[in-house]
């Protein structure tokens, strides 16, 4: 078990295995997102109340899922890095942050644009919207902290602490629709009950969510490999790699 974890934490081993895994996730992401988009945009029936503006759900919900999942992944990586000093966990956490921020922005933007025809307003200071805005600031804080130190180790530790503390915001986002009165509708996906949407609307949404997750995994593998090249540039095996690339 420990040998396995040690191996997993080795940048050299990760660089090799991620090269083999990466294409599968890119292919899955491409197929799922293309199929989900065509299905959601052109084939899913229009909502009887919202009309075609409801098609925003197919980018809004997957982005909001990723925004939260990426923050949790970052916090878990931060714990692994702080407790076991596994460098690769910190590299992964570092490369995840910008995508998380982008997805939070997409969720907020698509929500605002959707709010205009649906609620008659693009913004309300209600619990769900405000906690998502805080998530965006947390991401920007993590990214800024990484750039604010001359020592990489200090930057990593500061960003890890913010990720571990900031993760408290995630349950707040999730339960905000139950705890407070809010304009936002309740969860679209639940594990415990059957979907409240008709199947022909729900299936393309599921496909889009899976596509976005594949995209996240593929991009994180790719960028963690780049981060290895950046941080381990003095290692012999990385230099040999550069020699081969010539």
């Amino acid at each position, binding site marked *: 078990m420990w040998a396995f974890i040690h191996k997993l934490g080795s940048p050299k081993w990760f660089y090799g295995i991620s090269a083999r895994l990466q294409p599968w996730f890119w292919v899955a992401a491409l197929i799922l*997102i293309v199929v989900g988009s065509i299905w959601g945009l052109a084939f899913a*029936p229009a909502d009887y109340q919202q009309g075609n503006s409801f098609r925003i759900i197919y980018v809004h919900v997957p982005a909001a899922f990723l925004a939260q999942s990426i923050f949790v992944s970052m916090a878990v990586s931060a714990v692994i890095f702080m407790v076991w000093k596994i460098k690769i966990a910190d590299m992964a956490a570092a490369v995840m942050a910008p995508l998380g921020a982008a997805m939070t922005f997409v969720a907020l933007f698509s929500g605002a644009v959707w709010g205009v025809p649906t609620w008659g307003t693009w913004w309300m200071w209600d619990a769900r919207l405000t906690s998502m805005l805080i998530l965006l600031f947390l991401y920007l804080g993590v990214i800024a902290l990484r750039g604010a130190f001359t020592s990489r180790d200090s930057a990593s530790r500061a960003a890890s602490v913010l990720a571990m503390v900031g993760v408290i915001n995630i349950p707040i986002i999730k339960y905000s629709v139950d705890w407070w009165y809010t304009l936002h509708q309740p969860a679209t996906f639940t594990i415990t009950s059957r979907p409240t949407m008709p199947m022909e609307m729900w299936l393309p949404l599921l496909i889009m969510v899976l596509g976005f997750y594949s995209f996240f995994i593929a991009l994180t593998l790719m960028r963690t490999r780049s981060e290895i090249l950046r941080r381990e540039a003095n290692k012999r095996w990385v230099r040999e790699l550069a020699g081969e690339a010539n």
Partner: protein
Amino acid sequence: MAFDTLQDFFAMGGHAPYVWAAWGVTAALLLGTVIHARAERRQLLRQLARRVRRESRLATRAAGAQPIQTSRGGSTNDA
């Protein structure tokens, strides 16, 4: 198909600005991250190759006129 004509599809039942703005921003950001990640990787590989070349040059110069392969400089070839 939820639309009869292509015009209907683009019009989105009058919701075109909302639907296409949300989808457009999403697509742009997803594509942007991929383009950025590819550029980042290419740039890092170039930098690394340049560094290895420079150091092997310095190593041969340090070794004088004799073409001695130092372990540092020759590591890319004899490994």
